[in-house]
């Protein structure tokens, strides 16, 4: 029973990071019908911005690069990383995807793959190929909960992730911009005819998605403490699977999908099948696409001629 709870909690920890990334995939796919492969690498950049941000802000605050854990520093680093990635997301859309808006979809898809590799291997050249140790931005405590021990980081990851998901939920369903976003996602041309500035909506969607990825990156660094330029590949693919599982284009679906994938993986990791852990997300993906291609919460849409 203890190990059951322990696995569940670990799964929720990684699952909430998958969920944060999956949100970006699902929003962009909902609007552009494009798998933004570069999204997972924005997540990686977010983690690295957290790494460099921590050193920069420590230098500014105490005059040394040695990181002293604390909430003000954590908040600053988080905001710094979010800002950098928001900018990166905007540039990605503006430079790579917007010129291809009217090109065949396969061209956008190939561009997305290209951009993804550019960020990964460009990151390898800029940040160095070896793994880096993410500084401890917050002190780590062991908490006792129903007979299992949780680190305070797991709780923080979950809480921060939930806060940002709440903000997103509010933006999408509670603001005028959110309505514009849903309109563009529903029907691109009609939305444009109704006077919605579609280009701006798409740009902002990319920015929001990238910001969430940055939050995911910093939280990942906080709880796993090892970051490297290629870490986005696997995590991103799994997050995409999470988005498909929840029903692509569906915001709460992405969160549930992320948590499900995280929990399943966590249990698989503890079982004798642990060496197959990396394949499980893909098996789920194939099963979902075969039996319920619209995902758990998605609506089935027939192909129009």
């Amino acid at each position, binding site marked *: 029973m203890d190990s059951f709870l322990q696995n569940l909690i670990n799964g929720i920890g990684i699952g909430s990071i998958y969920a944060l990334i999956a949100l970006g995939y699902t929003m962009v796919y909902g609007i552009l019908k494009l798998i933004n492969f570069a999204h997972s690498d924005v997540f990686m950049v977010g983690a690295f911005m957290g790494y460099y941000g921590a050193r920069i802000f420590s230098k500014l605050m105490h005059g040394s690069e040695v990181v002293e854990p604390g909430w003000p520093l954590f908040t600053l680093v988080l905001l710094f990383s979010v800002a950098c990635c928001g900018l990166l997301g905007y540039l990605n859309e503006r430079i790579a995807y917007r010129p291809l808006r009217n*090109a065949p979809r*396969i061209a956008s898809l*190939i561009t997305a793959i*290209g951009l993804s590799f*550019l960020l990964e291997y460009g990151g390898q050249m800029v940040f*160095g190929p070896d793994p880096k140790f993410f500084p401890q931005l917050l002190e780590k405590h062991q908490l006792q909960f129903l007979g299992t021990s949780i680190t305070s980081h797991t709780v923080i990851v979950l809480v921060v992730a939930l806060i940002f998901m709440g903000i997103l939920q509010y933006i999408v369903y509670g603001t005028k911009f959110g309505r514009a976003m849903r309109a563009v996602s529903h029907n691109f041309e009609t939305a444009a005819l109704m006077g919605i500035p579609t280009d701006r909506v798409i740009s902002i969607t990319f920015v929001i998605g990238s910001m969430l990825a940055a939050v995911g990156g910093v939280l990942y660094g906080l709880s796993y403490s090892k970051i490297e330029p290629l870490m986005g590949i696997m995590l991103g693919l799994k997050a995409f699977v999470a988005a498909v599982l929840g029903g692509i284009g569906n915001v709460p679906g992405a969160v549930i999908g992320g948590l499900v994938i995280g929990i399943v993986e966590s249990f698989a990791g503890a079982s004798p099948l642990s*060496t*197959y852990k990396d*394949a499980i997300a893909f098996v789920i993906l194939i099963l979902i696409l075969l039996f319920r291609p619209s995902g758990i919460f998605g609506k089935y849409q027939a192909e129009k*001629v």
Partner: protein
Amino acid sequence: MRNWLVRDLAGIAVISAVLVGISYFLGWIPIPGMAYYNRVIVTIGINIILAVSLNIINGHAGQFSMGHAGFMAVGAYTSAYLTYFHFQPFLATLAEGPGRFALQQALFLGALLAGGAAAGIAGWVVGLPSLRLRGDYLAIVTLGFGEIIRVLILNIDKIGGARGLSGVPAFANFFWVYFFVCIVIIVSWRLVRSQVGRAFLAVREDEIAAEAMGVNTTHYKVQAFVIGSFFAGIAGGLLGHYLVYLNPGMFQFTKSFEAIVMVVLGGMGSISGSVLAAVILTVALEGLRFVKEAFGLTSDPRMVIYAIVLILLMRLRPQGLLGNRELGDFFRRRKGGDR
């Protein structure tokens, strides 16, 4: 026998004879560093097989597959399993001589074909879900399959698992690689100009319209996957027996990506484009090795350059170097003949 088959078989026989001649000649030229050039030439050949076979799936049939490395891995490990555990020990019991040499070639051919067949079966399995998926969903599923195959291989201890399989017999050489280069080009060429090729084209251009016209889209999509992955398996087998070493890390997503860049650069649906792009990119890659050394870079710039090539290509010339035409078409046009 049909007329074209006789012609093709005769062509293959002539080409084989020429290849044998060239490979003796290559072994004989006393250029320093010949081994290095030989390796580059063989790598080019293997990449051509990969690009042309992926072009059947991605270019002709229009099914965007990102799992080519997975099929390659299946072929590589199947054929290496046969030669390493069965054929090599058996050959070792025989006396040296022309008989053994001939038997070795025959067994190697058999192992390659078995590897291709295993990859073809894997392609059939992957092709099945493609019946229900299109475009980017298919891309991500094939990618997932590629990863699943790699994780499975990692877990099979008999063939080395994560350690890799070293000591694969060095059966592959210039002759075998270019023999299969010719085969894949001829098969692909004949395929495109057959009824099957026209069906591929119909599926690529508009699946729903093709279905309405009575084309069995399911059948042809799976067929494209099986044929493409068969040759990917052959390429994998050749690679393993040339490098005498296999490791699941060799068949990561990046390998599929390399093949995709070749097909896209050459022009999706153009056989000669794929060949051309495979040659250009492999040679460029070797050039970049010197760039890396000259600038003292710690990491390989080649993936960055691949990525930039891909992004710029989509902006400036999305149809690739040759579009969906062949090299010959350009010359034919210049003569003023109408097509």
